[in-house]
């Protein structure tokens, strides 16, 4: 830009001016290029921030879908949320769901990824097949499970009867509903863990393994002292993704149990949905979602801090 200004300030030499015009144009283009490249991201940010701040504002009002007028009521929606036992119950359900799902998916995903990290036809075939669940929408996967587990007409009803579990009610009973949800979640999202961990495993350097082989290190020694430290950044980033999404999970729970039986599986997302849409109380729903957002943000922030440290350590190991 400064070049452009200096050129335009000295119009005395005609040949220079003729040459400087395209140069100035080019300089101008170069100057605005970063902004053009960033424009979609800026637009997206604005598109996120406007509803976000509008939601924060509305959470201090008594806005409902029953009326277009509303008044400011201060922190009433927040205090009533914290005083509501349904909120604390839903928070417990959300944490239970997220922690168990993430743990199961991480353990199973890492195990399967280690098994598939071999170059043989079976591994190659399984690598393709195991990502099938990721290719369908979670809500469709859930509806398929709902049909399969139907005790009257589902295809699992016969085998379940054969092993003496004909009365197993899956998502339809309070004591098995959470198990059923976790099963469906694990079926849908474990392949996600497998893919990331497998990609991480295949990008690890070979030389430390060769050295360990020469030194006669056992497989457990190799896994604990080489694979795990080097893979830690990938594992942590996978953990961040899975934990974030499990805390926010809506579609699987909504499609399988709608938060029932009773309130057994009423997560924070479902509680907020019920308040906001079927019951029209948008302003009461927003604090629940903002609380969830803050919790997810905080947990992710802490985990990303661990990830940075792990990355630094892994670089040292490599």
């Amino acid at each position: 830009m400064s070049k452009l200004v200096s050129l335009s300030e000295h119009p005395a030499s005609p040949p220079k001016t003729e040459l400087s015009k395209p140069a100035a144009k080019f300089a101008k283009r170069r100057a605005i290029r970063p902004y053009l490249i960033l424009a979609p991201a800026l637009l997206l940010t604005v598109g996120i921030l406007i509803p976000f701040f509008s939601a924060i504002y509305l959470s201090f009002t008594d806005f409902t879908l029953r009326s277009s007028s509303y008044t400011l009521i201060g922190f009433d929606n927040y205090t009533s949320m914290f005083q509501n036992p349904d909120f604390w119950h839903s928070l417990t359900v959300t944490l239970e769901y997220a922690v168990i799902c993430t743990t199961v998916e991480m353990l199973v995903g890492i195990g399967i990824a280690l098994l598939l990290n071999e170059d043989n036809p079976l591994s190659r075939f399984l690598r393709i097949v195991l990502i099938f669940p990721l290719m369908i929408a979670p809500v469709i996967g859930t509806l398929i499970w709902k049909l399969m587990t139907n005790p009257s007409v589902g295809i699992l009803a016969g085998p379940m009867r054969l092993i003496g579990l004909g009365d197993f009610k899956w998502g339809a009973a309070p004591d098995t509903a959470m198990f059923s949800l976790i099963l469906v979640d694990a079926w849908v999202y474990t392949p996600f863990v497998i893919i990331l961990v497998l990609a991480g495993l295949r990008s690890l350097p070979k030389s430390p393994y060769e050295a360990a082989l020469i030194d006669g290190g056992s497989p457990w020694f190799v896994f604990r002292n080489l694979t795990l430290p080097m893979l830690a950044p990938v594992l942590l980033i996978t953990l961040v993704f899975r934990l974030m999404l499990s805390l926010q999970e809506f579609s699987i729970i909504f499609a399988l149990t709608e938060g029932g039986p009773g309130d057994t599986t009423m997560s924070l997302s479902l509680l907020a949905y019920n308040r906001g849409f079927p019951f029209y109380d948008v302003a009461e729903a927003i604090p629940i979602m903002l609380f969830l957002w803050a919790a997810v943000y905080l947990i992710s922030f802490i985990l990303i801090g661990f990830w940075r440290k792990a990355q630094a350590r892994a670089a040292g190991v490599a």
Partner: protein
Amino acid sequence: MKIRFPKVIFIATSTAAIMLAAGFLRSARAEDNQFDWKQASGVKLVVMLNKHPYADAIIKKLPEFKELTGIDVEYTETPEENYFDKLTTALASKNGNPDVFMTGTYQLWDYATSGYMEPLDQYLNDPAMTNPGYDIKDFFQGVLNGGKWNLKPGSPVGTGQQWALALGFETNILAYNKKYFDEKGIQVPKTFDELYDLAKKLKGWNGPGSYGVAVRGTRNWATIHPGYMTTFSGAGAKDFEIKDGKLVSALDQPLPVEVTKKWAQLVKDGGPPAWANYTWYQCGADFGAGKAAMLYDADILGYFQNVPGASSQAGNIAYAPGPVWKEGDPVGANEWIWQIAINSSSKNKKAAWVFTQYFTGKEHGTWAAIDASVVDPPRKSIWENKDFQAVMAKMPGYLDTFNAIIGNTSIKFTPQPYFFESTTEWAATLQKIVLSGTDPKSAMTDLAKRITRNTSKLEISEPTKKTTSR
């Protein structure tokens, strides 16, 4: 020159007579059909429809509608699971889009109270706006009343303004596997206790996983309104009462508790094994597949399972009124009505009214009932139509059941704007009683408290007398 007088006179008088006759006929036809269907010609109307056979019948007739009225219709069709979320948001935006929408009575209590619906009496009472052949008295009173309310929580339907007009409705009845019942010499249950005994006995009637009676059970308001509410209201139980000028839930009273306890027992001993996952879809599918011997739900759900080729049990199904609470009680049912209403923010209200009266009129209703599977039609004349009766005659007991219950078929809930919250909580409580073994009395007392917390804030009126005759 010979003047051919008689011939000239003959021609002249004949022409005059023909012209007079034509003029007379034209004016007579004009009197018959003074209504100007083209009064909103050129308007583009936005319509929101729920995915349903009633909506499909409308869509099929849009070309004829455009030809008659000159009104262009742009429509969206959304599955029921998301329809009302989408509609509520659209209406709350108050931008006049959609102009016309499909709704149900229970939603009306929210939308009309919120000022989202255009009152229709001004159109119905204006001869220039309403086709003289519209004949509003042709609607069953209980169905017409479903779109009428004075917006005062606690006042029954059938009072105040007309907010919506019916496209079709559903009563709740007992559909049963006639073939099996005939083979085994089983009598159709007439009382609730008989239903319970039979449903319990029929566990495993058609192999593993089969059971007595299919009823809904998800944690959703839709669990409450079919068989359960029909039983509840048939027993004489009330959902609300007015106490000290406040609308208070009556669900903790002895009769509601007793009905709920017995219903829970029916579900446990004779209902679907995965009851808490059962929507209308699973109930219908199990019944059609021969897994459930009976279905206590919307009449049209049993109807569609009996259409040739629709299910493995098609042709084996028959219908009867829902069992009464105790012998001697009148048969009847709670109903669900699909209606058309006009957005109060619409900028095309005249065209919206033309659309509404066309698709709730006799002509469309009759065609839809006979040729487009729109059961149950809301007009008496259609049920009296021989062609429609011929279609219905293929469904054993359907017409007789309808005729037996229609006089006592109405909206059995007390109108109030917290309907969905109350009934969803009600369904959750029912799940707790059935599945967690929670004591019905304490569960219903807790439920009543939760519901009253909302409804006690409402400004109410003493119930007004309403018409309930057929």
